[in-house]
């Protein structure tokens, strides 16, 4: 995998951007790189990058998170510190962008820096199991809305098609047609296919560039989802 200094993950909300950004940051850090992840989500009130603070810290990934993430302050404000992602060229920066065009507006202020340095990947995260992006055409519409909102074109696509805990190998394999179509009509390459780590062994030989994800556990996962009974 070729790494640019900055990697931005954007897409439809609920497409899995945060999980992918966290895992990608950790995988870079494991390659002895100095990594910093920025939570630039101004849309989502819950389930944020900061939920993975412990894992990120253990992997020596620096986390820049809005001061009021996961608090009662419903304030769409980003910390000044986030400029370090685009200005400090000694780190690999990962930017976790909020969902849809509304989330992508926040990226606009960093775009002049990104274009000037010109060492970034702008990645569209696609989940074809989401109801408003069931097809390549629908996903393409979301891509165009995001690009218009932030003023930056996508350069890569990540396929993160999943049904949460109900994801099985077929769910991922079945998404192959739509993701290929999205690559064709957008003219962009597939960066990788993200999967829950337990699915990776079954699919690594069938799909190129598999990226296994360790998902953030939640206190409300049901016993059957945890395999507890």
């Amino acid at each position, binding site marked *: 995998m070729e790494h640019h200094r900055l990697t931005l993950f954007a897409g439809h909300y*609920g497409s899995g951007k945060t999980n992918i950004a966290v895992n990608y940051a950790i995988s870079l850090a494991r390659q002895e790189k100095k990594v910093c992840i920025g939570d630039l989500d101004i849309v*989502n*009130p*819950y*389930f944020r990058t900061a939920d993975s603070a412990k894992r990120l810290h253990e992997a020596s990934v620096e986390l820049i998170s809005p001061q009021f993430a*996961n*608090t*009662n302050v*419903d304030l769409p404000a980003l910390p000044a510190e986030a400029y370090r992602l685009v200005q400090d060229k000694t780190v690999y920066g990962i930017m976790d962008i909020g969902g849809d065009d509304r989330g992508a507006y926040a990226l606009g202020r960093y775009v002049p820096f990104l274009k000037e340095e010109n060492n970034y990947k702008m990645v569209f995260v696609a*989940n074809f*199991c*989401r*109801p*408003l992006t*069931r097809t390549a055409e629908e996903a393409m519409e979301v891509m165009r809305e995001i690009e218009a909102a932030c003023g930056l074109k996508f350069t890569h696509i990540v396929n993160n098609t*999943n*049904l*949460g*805990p*109900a994801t099985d190998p077929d769910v991922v394999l079945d998404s192959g047609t739509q993701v290929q179509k999205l690559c064709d009509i957008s003219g962009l390459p597939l960066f990788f296919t993200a999967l829950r780590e337990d699915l990776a062994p079954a699919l690594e030989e069938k799909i190129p560039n598999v990226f296994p994800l360790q998902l953030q556990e*939640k*206190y*409300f*996962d*049901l*016993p059957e989802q*945890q395999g*507890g*009974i």
Partner: protein
Amino acid sequence: MAERVLMKGNEAIAEAAIRAGCRHYFGYPITPQTEIAAYMAKKMPKIGGVFLQAESEIASINMVYGAAAAGMRVMTSSSSPGISLKAEGLSYIAGSDVPALVVNVQRGGPGLGGIQPSQSDYFQATKGGGHGDYRMIVLAPASVQEMANLTIKGFNLADKYLMTSMILADGTIGQMMEPISFEDAQIETYEKPWALTGTDCKRKHNVVNSLYLQPDQLEKKNFERFERYRQVEENEAMWEEYMMEDAEICVVAFGIASRVAKNAIVAARKEGIKVGLIRPITLWPFPKKPLAAAAEKVNSFISVELSMGQMIEDVRLATQCKKPVSLCNRCGGMIPSPDEVLETIRNAQKGV
């Protein structure tokens, strides 16, 4: 296998409402339920429906009242402080016997409170909130699939009994994502001869109103209404029982608290403690029968809530205080952890 999609709880409510035939949504944005309005704003114009962001919560509930009087399947959604603002309209809708669906994705309170999840509007939903003698059917989903199923059920029951159904969810279930399917959706439709649809000069005009000039007429109306409520209590209580067969301790929890409780129960069972769960799915009507039956079998009850203890009063009433009921709770946007629930179960086992 049924076709499934991955949805947020809030989106599931919106999609289920559309599938149930709702073409009128009036609301005002508030975290953590704004995705409902956002989904409606995107979809309604494409299917000939109405999405209207009103100037306030009070305006939106009165728009619901109007559309309901015209016989439409109509809904609004909000979160705790917004529901307080709608309380007057809820009372008028009840007093006029028209059906509506109201969603409350609860957040911490009282006052402006916070945006993190809560269940502290239990009293408001089940005991009133608005003025006067009235009830709402209160449905408490514990998964994204139930967000969808109970939304459809809520519309059906509202039309059947001419009253408001409220989905009482919390921020976590509104925001979390799970796979769901709509293939088993049971959509019922009801004739609405009482609706204000225009007479064409062919019939006597209908009246939808909550004002009665004579007290005996108002009393009669209330008696009739409570006869309907009695039927709801008799026929519509829903609950889930989990590991109750041999249980000596009964945990009672709804919504997100029930999911935490299940994990604690599995852990307690591994320690040899015989504990089970009764999960109310309808909070009104409250599932009195299974609780009364459990009171004859178990040694004690534990109410797990994201509030200072509200449902616990109904647990005590339903069990007629035959067995002790203890409380395991967090509030203000906090959620009890499985370990906290487990500790309460251990204490109940020791008789503490």
